[in-house]
């Protein structure tokens, strides 16, 4: 059987399979739109908050004014007591409450350090941090003013006042994803996983389908084709398709959603090709193992959430149990996510991706050998049956 005939056979199976096409084309397009949706607004703003002002002084109003000016805080109500505010939290009307104590103004002037209280509904992930940051900033500004006023009274020259506020302080500089955008955080990593998962499902449906046909005794090219011919066909078919998908994801989608692209084209493509070959090799293995067409989607789907969270971009690798991380490393996505993030989000050169590339190469070699072995075995089992 010539290579061209085998290639034609494989291609025909792929394009005539509705479920397969739905996944590798429809799914890829749909996910590229759907996944970024929750994060389109990028950062956490407008959290509903209540103010309980027991002081009602000029100073407390000045603080409220500063709080209102922060992007994170949206003052939606004022309560007379903290009990009322708590009720509003339980009713899910507000996410936090800021309480300014009685005698706030007096204590501040007397140097008695009044305590402003912030209560946050900590049921949600980013809310505490956002409200804490906004409130702390406002309070620090207000406190800075009070401190400066005191120093000025002590005849400290204005120019020196700013420096004397604290012996030394922390100046934190955010590098990469400077504004803490959530879309920049999630999308570059999740898109890599989506590419891998849709590819594996597609190849799993193809392989499982062929196994099913062989089991039923349906004749086809796959009975007499050489295993390497089938494997090469898959590298070409899925390689071409997902190469285009990759350009679409890292090019069009990233631009569309405003995701940073620091990598140069050549580096991105070289690493991307490594990632695709490793993924296709794994796809060949899984395709040979799945006994039915319908097993691929569920099995790959179930692995998705554990794979996202063990890739190290959400939760530090240092805190993930080693055996879980080792299992995750069996999938190309884990190391590829780390590599792509370094390359495209942090602007590291390709040379910094040595380990990641090596892992992908190793996976390619091992999965190619395994894939060859399992496919050969399937063919033999069929021919032995006849």
């Amino acid at each position, binding site marked *: 059987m010539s290579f061209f005939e085998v290639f034609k056979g494989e291609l025909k199976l792929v394009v005539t399979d*509705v*479920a397969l096409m739905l996944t590798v084309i429809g*799914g890829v397009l749909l996910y590229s739109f*759907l*996944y970024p949706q929750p994060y389109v*607004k990028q*950062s*956490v703003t407008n959290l*509903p908050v209540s103010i309980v002002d027991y002081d009602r002084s000029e100073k407390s109003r000045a603080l409220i004014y500063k709080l209102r000016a922060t992007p994170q805080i949206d003052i939606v109500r004022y309560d007379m007591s903290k009990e009322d505010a708590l009720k509003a939290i*339980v009713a*899910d009307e507000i996410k936090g409450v800021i309480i300014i104590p009685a005698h706030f103004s007096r204590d501040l002037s007397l*140097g008695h*350090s009044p*305590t402003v*209280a*912030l*209560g*946050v*509904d*900590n*049921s*949600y*992930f*980013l809310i*505490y941090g956002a409200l*804490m940051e906004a409130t702390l900033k406002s309070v620090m500004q207000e*406190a800075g003013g*009070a401190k400066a006023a005191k120093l000025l009274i002590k005849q400290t020259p204005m120019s020196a006042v*700013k*420096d004397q506020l*604290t*012996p*030394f*302080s*922390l*100046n*934190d*500089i955010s*590098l*990469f994803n400077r504004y803490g955008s*959530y879309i920049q*955080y999630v999308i570059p990593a999740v898109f890599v996983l989506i590419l891998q998962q849709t590819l594996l*499902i597609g190849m799993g449906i193809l392989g499982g389908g062929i196994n099913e046909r062989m089991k039923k005794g349906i004749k086809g090219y796959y009975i007499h084709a050489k295993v390497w011919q089938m494997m090469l066909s898959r590298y070409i078919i899925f390689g071409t398709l997902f190469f285009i998908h990759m350009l679409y994801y890292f090019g069009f989608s990233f631009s569309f959603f405003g995701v940073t692209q620091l990598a140069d084209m050549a580096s991105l493509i070289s690493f991307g090709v490594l990632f695709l070959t490793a993924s296709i090799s794994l796809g060949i293995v899984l395709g040979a193992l799945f006994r039915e067409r*319908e*097993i691929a*989607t569920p099995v790959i*789907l*179930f692995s998705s*959430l554990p794979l996202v*969270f*063990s890739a190290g*971009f*959400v939760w*530090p690798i240092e*805190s993930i149990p080693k055996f*879980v991380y080792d299992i995750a490393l069996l999938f190309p996505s884990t190391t590829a996510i780390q590599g792509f993030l*370094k390359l495209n989000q*942090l*602007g590291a050169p390709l040379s*910094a991706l040595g380990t990641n590339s090596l892992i992908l190469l190793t996976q390619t070699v091992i999965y190619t050998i395994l894939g060859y072995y399992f496919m050969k075995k399937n063919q033999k089992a069929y021919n032995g049956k006849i």
Partner: protein
Amino acid sequence: MFEDFLWALKEELRQIKSSWYKLGLITIFPLLCFALIIAIFKEGVAHDLPVAVVDYDKSSLSRKVLFDIDASSTIHITQQCNDVISAKRLLQESKVYGVIIIPKNFTKDVYLKKSPKVTALLNTQYILISKIFKAALLETVSGVAGSVEVGWNLAKDEPLYEAIANVAPIKLYTATFFNTYKNYFYFLVSALLPSIWQIFVVIGTIVSFGSLFKAKKEQEFFREGSLIMKTLGKIFPYTMAYFLLGAGYVFYLYGVEPWPFEGSLSVMLFAIFLTTIAYQAVALFLFVTGFDYARALSLGAVYTAPAFAFLGITFPIYSMNAFAIFWRDLLPVSYLVNIQISLANYGASALQQLDNLYHIALFLLFFIPVIWQFKQRLAR
């Protein structure tokens, strides 16, 4: 009527017994996924995040600052660099999560009251990790700065309480309601478990009917008796299994782990039961759109896989756009998680859950087109 239900139920149980795959879908696969997610976040707090330092001052004060930073459980100084460029490269290569720079003449400037700055370069690409890192750093640096300042104020013969008060003219007291542990395990796992769970409910239900139609046994299965009863009987083993798995994750979170459940547990269990059936209705609906097993699975994947992102636990719904909120509303698990938070954290009453329960119940309406489509299909 009821015999039809029982007959279909027994038939399905037999199927499950003879298929390791179907059995796995209601037992070992979901449990394994639960276990992996729990294992990943089990530690709950991040510790020993690797960090590089560049100390241009090399004084006793700079060493004190760095020592205190290293002593915090969150940060671990792994690299000493001679210049910022090489430190930044480590950051780019993700070998460290941050770089701490102590400027030249740091000690001198402190005593000249020039208020120098300790600079931290944070890799904010990893939002959560950099947040944890920054909080720990801020605490340590202001701690050391505060103790220096108190020393100065004492030297000025200020009484101790005033010396401390002058450091911070306004204090900020923060309290967190609910999840007071500030533990990431609770945040993430309490939302991830239901997100994984709903994937299984949909897939398991599709597999049950998909395999029946794929084997072309549907005519035989629905030959006589009540179509509705047989449908309910066939999905019942899955209803029960997934209800138990749902109850299982609730038991794990609020029974095995130490988190309190303030509200009524029976309301929670009822909500899980309702959500199970709601998802089964949606799953069957996805199946009857084409009666194609593999295609229904693809649709089920698109429907359930992104759910976690839409729950609003990680990224708040207040900051979501209209489409995201619309998609969120199409997922029964959104309402289930609302109920879970409301009951577990706020200790809200059963009455306050009616709105969410009503929304979940609305999904049961999907059974109508399902039964109608079954009838059409079988009539052919």
